[in-house]
């Protein structure tokens, strides 16, 4: 990985970490969902900053260059995170449906009681 690319990656990861922390502080993101992002980008920092680690893992996994490996790993993780998010959305869908149904039935019952 070239020196320039390393600098850019470090700045970008730092930016993401700061962004997540800022969102946490403003209460716009749940801690349990933010942790995964912070850990991911902290790991990336470590990988890039400590010399030798990146090239060692690159050789072990059989990638041509360090940047290739970083991109591949990030894509893989993004896919996993997206699937988890889809799961969360589906689950919320279910909860919202239940709420709409129960509230509507309750409203109907209230109207009936009022008319009697």
């Amino acid at each position, binding site marked *: 990985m070239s020196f320039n690319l390393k600098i850019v990656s470090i700045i970008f990861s730092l930016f993401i970490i700061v962004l997540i922390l800022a969102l946490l502080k403003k209460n716009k993101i749940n801690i349990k969902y933010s942790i995964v992002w912070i850990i991911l980008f902290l790991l990336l920092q470590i990988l890039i900053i400590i010399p030798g680690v990146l090239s060692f893992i690159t050789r072990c996994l059989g990638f041509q260059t360090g940047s290739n490996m970083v991109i591949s790993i990030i894509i893989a993780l993004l896919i996993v995170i997206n699937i988890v998010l889809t799961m969360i959305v589906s689950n919320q869908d279910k909860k919202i*449906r239940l709420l*709409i*149904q129960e509230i*509507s*039935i309750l*409203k*109907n019952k209230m109207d009936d009681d009022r008319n009697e």
Partner: protein
Amino acid sequence: MKVLLIIPSFNEEDNVLDNYNKIMNYNKKYKSNFDVIVIDDGSSDKTKEICEENDIPHISLVHNLGIGGAVQTGYKYALINDFDIAIQFDGDGQHDINYANKLIEPIINENADMVIGSRFIDKTSSKFKSSKARRFGINIISIFMKIVTGKKIYDTTSGFRAVNKKLIQYFAINYPVEYPEPVSTVEVLKKKMCVKEVPVSMNERENGISSIKTWKKVYYMINVVLSILTVGIGGKK
């Protein structure tokens, strides 16, 4: 026997009163005592107002849920009010109330847990058999259902169906909200319950549009087949 007609309605201001009157006339004529609950699925037209003005029993969902969520609300209502049989009856004038007695007969005689009003079981029964493309789709769904459950269901997407108390309890909690007709049938068959089809005649939709749009048909088919396979193959949830 307390019988409830669940009528999911989404933007059916033209049909809802007409439909209700037909059912009331039927009740008078045959001295039956079918209760009605219209589930207004968050309609943006006057469906709700018409129900209120004419004292039609209705539940207005506070937000649109789609046909599956609306029908499930009906099952919840049936469970709360202790109904013995629930009939799903479309709000768009497609279904004919005159077949309701035929539909619940196997359930009263305890020959079936679920009865589907079928357009295709008897060649002469229905003038309206829907388009060729749609029948082709229905047949494909039927083949996949036969593969996973071993039972041949002819009219897989018919929304005119009756269920007994056991299934009211089940559907109130576990009604499939996506592609409810075929998927719920597979679930019922997988529970080793008995599903029967009786021939009915259906009308072409009087007003309003089908919930399945033309360009979505292929996408719909892939989704339905996938859901049938995932529900049908593998053990219990």
